[in-house]
């Protein structure tokens, strides 16, 4: 209000001399308190520290409105900050209760015939996991394969339940003529811990191309996808990120169920398999040596036939 004259005191501070007006005394006192707290607006000079309070006067409605305008942003900021605090606290507490999914994969045995052991731990939690089935979707590179007949035999013995997501697989082709393979392995509960599952899958290496430097080729096994299917509701499932996929309910049951493909943070790096391969630099030596030996051996046999053959045949010596 222009009526309220503003005078600048020493130091450039505002000095407001309250003109005697009706009903402004307490407001003035309040303003003085608030004035010390913060600024009245951008560009306006700071309120004076030692503000002399005039006689209690009543501020008019206009001034009240101005103060409300100045107050509102503050309230807004405060409300926002309180809300943020609450939200953060709530999310922190929520993260504290959302269990981690731990997936470990390791290759057992050595050589061309291995066993892939996968363990999935669905974190600590109170609710029972009994009604849920867990499966993993393994993506095998071209350098590895599974034998479908071996899988069928293991299924009969109830050791492994796996389903190939391909019609046929060529078990004899080398790596450079083969394709990737996807397999769904149904996990069994692991007796070691409460919400643990494990699965064992026998994998075999294919023959790889001969290498130039070291005698080893690398086959990299990516981290598997984790699929969970629960008959009853499973609260922990809600806090994990998941996408819906359709897959067979089990190996024996041909029906399709709606599985949840949960995302997880892999604990260990990808599993790497080293496959022994031939060395290209042996090529010349091997070809020469083989041909030489076969020619030598055939000459030995030919010489023996010529020498010891039946009499009607033996005229080579003549």
């Amino acid at each position, binding site marked *: 209000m222009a009526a309220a004259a503003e005078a600048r005191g020493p130091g450039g501070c505002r000095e407001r001399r309250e003109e005697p007006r009706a009903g402004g005394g307490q407001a003035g006192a309040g303003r003085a308190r608030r004035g010390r707290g913060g600024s009245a607006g951008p560009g306006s000079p700071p309120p004076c520290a030692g503000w002399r309070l005039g006689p209690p006067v009543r501020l008019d409605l206009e001034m009240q409105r101005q103060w409300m305008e100045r107050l509102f942003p503050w309230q807004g900021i405060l409300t926002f900050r309180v809300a943020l605090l609450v939200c953060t606290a709530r999310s922190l507490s929520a993260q504290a209760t959302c269990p981690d999914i731990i997936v470990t994969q390791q290759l057992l045995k050595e050589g061309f015939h291995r066993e892939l052991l996968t363990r999935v731990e669905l974190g600590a939690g109170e609710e029972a996991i009994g009604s849920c089935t867990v499966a993993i979707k393994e993506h095998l590179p071209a350098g590895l394969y599974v034998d479908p007949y071996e899988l069928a035999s293991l299924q009969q013995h109830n050791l492994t339940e796996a389903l190939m997501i391909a019609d046929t697989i060529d078990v004899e082709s080398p790596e450079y003529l083969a394709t990737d393979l996807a397999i769904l392995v149904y996990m069994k509960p692991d007796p070691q811990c409460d919400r643990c599952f494990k699965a064992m899958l026998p994998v075999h290496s294919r023959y790889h191309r001969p290498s130039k430097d070291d005698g080893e080729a690398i086959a990299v096994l990516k981290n598997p996808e984790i699929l969970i299917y629960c008959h009853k509701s499973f609260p922990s499932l809600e806090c994990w990120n998941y996408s819906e996929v359709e897959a067979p309910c089990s190996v024996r049951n041909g029906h399709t169920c709606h599985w949840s493909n949960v995302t997880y943070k892999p604990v260990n790096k990808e599993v790497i398999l080293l496959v022994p391969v031939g060395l290209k630099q042996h090529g010349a030596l091997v070809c020469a040596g083989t041909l030489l030996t076969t020619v030598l051996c055939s000459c030995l046999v030919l010489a023996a036939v010529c020498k010891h053959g039946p009499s009607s045949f033996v*005229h080579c010596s003549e």
Partner: protein
Amino acid sequence: MAARRAEGQRAGAPWRRRAGWLFGSAALLRLALLCYGAYQDRTMLVKYTDVDYHVFTDAARFVSQGRSPYLRATYRYTPLLGWILAPNIYLTPLFGKLLFIAGDLTAAGLMLHILLLRGMDASKACGYCAFWLLNPLPMAVSSRGNAESLVAVLVLATMYYIEKGNIVKSAILYGFSVHMKIYPVTYALPIALHLQNDGCCEKGATDAFHFKKSKCSLMGHFWQFFSRPLNSNVLLFGAVGGFTFVALSLSFYYFYGWEFLEHTYLYHLTRRDIRHNFSPYFYMLYLTAESEWSFALGLAAFLPQLLLLLVVSLAYYKDLVFCCFLHTAVFVSFNKVCTSQYFLWYLCLLPLVMPNVKMSWQRGVLLLLLWFLGQALWLVPAYFLEFKGNNTFLLIWLAGLLFLFINCFVLVQIISHYQKGEKVSKKVKHQ
């Protein structure tokens, strides 16, 4: 005459009893292995039964449903096998193994009869048959469910009927044997030479056609064979055998189409397995699998085999069994792929060859041990490669070359100690 027959019967009775005991115990041993195999399959994770037997059974199942046996992956045999093994589905899964064991015993029976035809003493013949009947290798192979004994029966039956002079029967059986497994096709040349020259094997007759002395009489034999018109026996054998083979192929082609040709014949003719096996060519073929030299090297690998087969046929066609034995041994040793199943192909002819190979039993045992040593020296680095992941390719290659050398050494020893029984051959001709 009657007295002589009675005397023969009295002399014959002990050997029949002996033969009965031999065959009986061989059958019992094989049945015992069969039962043990069933037990191991049910209880242990490592199976006794060979993978091939499951392939046969699955193919038989498809056949019983009226579908193609080639729906089963890695089934690379004649559909006839799937048809024969249909009782595996209807009766018992052990039917096939029982059939193969029966084949084993039939093969031994044929060996016995061929040796008797050649004029051998009956009890001695039984002794030679014991080499097959009491040999653990054919026992294990048949009880594990491999069909090698069926091919052995067909090949031995062919030899038997040729010895007897029954051309038509031998040609039909030969057609069946080539249909089942490709390798008997190499016997065509020795059989043709044998039948062609059956009537004129006196030394004088061959000298008359002797070519130039400066060249080896290899050329002389060639000239001799091709200059004369083909014998009626050869023509008959060729016609009947060819007809049998073509009839079988056409009927199965009608049922199963191109798949049948591809899996039964073409796969075996063009097979080039780069995975480790006994063949000396394995590492060479593996390293050059994708290079432009691959075809040329394959051809180069074929030449020693071809040359040796030709020379052996021309040298030993008069004793058909010995010739076929050498043929198969050379074929298997110099082949681009060699697995232990192939050894049975010439092992079934060995009891027939042994009487004519005059070497001391010590030398024989030593050669056998040397042959086993060659296999063992290959198996050790192969085990480390496959089950431990060590890079033993060079060692496997060297072991393969050594095994080839040992095989050739054993063959050379057999050739150098071979003495064709003159009395025996004359007796056969006068029948």
